[in-house]
């Protein structure tokens, strides 16, 4: 993929607006990083299981019980816009 296209492609997927100036340097930087990462192709990974993280198999669970959040008022106090007990956003359905 071309540098400029990489930025347009991922910026849209990631929902991040980028200015023309940012596009100009991000494309070159990303392709340089991706070029470095190409080195991984030399590693022999046949038959190797991916390692996603540590201790994922310890099967820890806790009681699935509903609790009243004590933080509702504080959580809403951080909202950029709210109405009564809800976050407020622009109209989604026309």
């Amino acid at each position, binding site marked *: 993929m071309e540098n400029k296209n990489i930025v347009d492609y991922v910026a849209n997927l990631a929902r991040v607006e980028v200015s023309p100036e940012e596009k100009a340097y991000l494309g070159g*930087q990303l392709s340089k990083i991706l070029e470095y990462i190409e080195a991984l192709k030399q590693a022999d990974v046949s038959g190797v299981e991916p390692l996603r993280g540590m201790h994922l198999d310890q099967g820890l669970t806790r009681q699935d019980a509903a609790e009243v959040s004590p933080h509702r008022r504080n959580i809403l106090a951080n909202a950029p816009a709210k109405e009564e007990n809800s976050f407020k956003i622009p109209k989604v359905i026309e």
Partner: protein
Amino acid sequence: MDKLSDLSAAMISQAIKEKKLDAAVVYDFFRQRAKQLNPRLNSLVEIYDSPVPAQGESGLAGVPIVIKDNICIEGRKITCASRILDSHTAVYDATVITRLKNAGLKILGTANMDEFAFGSSTENSCYGPVKNPWNIERVPGGSSGGSAAAVASRQVPLALGSDTGGSIRQPAGLCGVVGFKPTYGRVSRYGLIAFGSSLDQIGTFTRDFTDCAHLLNIICGHDSLDSTSSQIAVPDFTKSLGQDLAGLRIGLPREYFGEGLDPQVRSAVTEAIEVFKSKGARIVDISLPHTKYAVAVYYIAASSEASSNLQRFDGVKYGLRAKTNNMIDLHKLSRGQGFGPEAKRRIFLGTYSLSSGYYDAYYLRALKVRRLIKTDFDKAFKEVDVILTPTAPAEAFKFGEKTADPLSMYLSDIYTISANLAGLPAVSFPCGFTKNNLPIGGQLIGKEFDEAALIRLGAAYQSQTEWHMKMPALP
């Protein structure tokens, strides 16, 4: 009694217990010192007029501590040094904060950092860069540069940071303090704003290993609020202090002493080997053959996890919201305005690696190589008890030196990243100075859940050396 800033945290706590010092006087002393030095260092985001209320006893009760600004303290501002979170108030305590409060520590403020912990120099902060106390024209390392600089300059005796690829150890190395990243799962991540969830670990900044052992005693342990938190029993780490090293085998991985390592750093770590030997340790040459892939694996894995974790900053529930009447534009513009350049690079790299058509070639392949890196360590730890390496390839660099070339910045974490990929405990300790009078750090990597061995080695080393007593010249 010596000047308060010269005392270790354990000594201050002991003096408070013996009523030789008053906790309020101690707090005020460090608050004044922090305020006085902060315009020069920019290490702290906030300095509290009075400590966060805390009641409890421990080996560090009454001692002031600063917290990296990505760990939640209820009712206080938390920013991750990002514009997107500016003016956000934490609505609950991280588990480590609850533990510090219950141990009677006095939280004095929050430490500056790279935005969302993305960086190795603390130049990526919306509050401006942190200065290295040893030379204010140099970076302190990162991303926990504020925590490292605060402890090195003795603004405060203790700090917490977080380490995803070296973010505690690399700044500790470049600032000349002890920076400890425990085993993945040892410390609860509840209340740490997530960067790379399979890599993140909260850890400590102290000047010596005694304070380090006490602080780890307080923050380590199981927490049901973090499903990756380990249930393995936590030993009393202070029992590892004052031991000799008879029978301990230290591995030197040849891949960590090759091309790209500054000769001054090499010779300081080589001298440290002699100190360990003099205390009874045996040296074994080892190989970790997949080390050359660590940086590439890390930037795929960590950025992928980051791009997913940072989706929550969408302008809806908290943080910055751009003015628009369209919902998709609200997400895009809020994120575009709120995230800095490095956050965007990581989000884009991660999004690319996880996107349809690239997932197998990048993300999945990286996780397979991650397994190979972990297997290297598993094999090595059959022959040795700990591994000794440099913390960083060179001394603290100058501001702006690596900002235009992100890849060169990423490579400054080349020796610290593997411990995160393999989930292992690791610590950076001061082991010398360059001819520019800048600190050099050595790194010890331990077996899973064997933090005790690292403390045993570190404490034995500090009993024979004085690097950790040196202090930067400050006004």
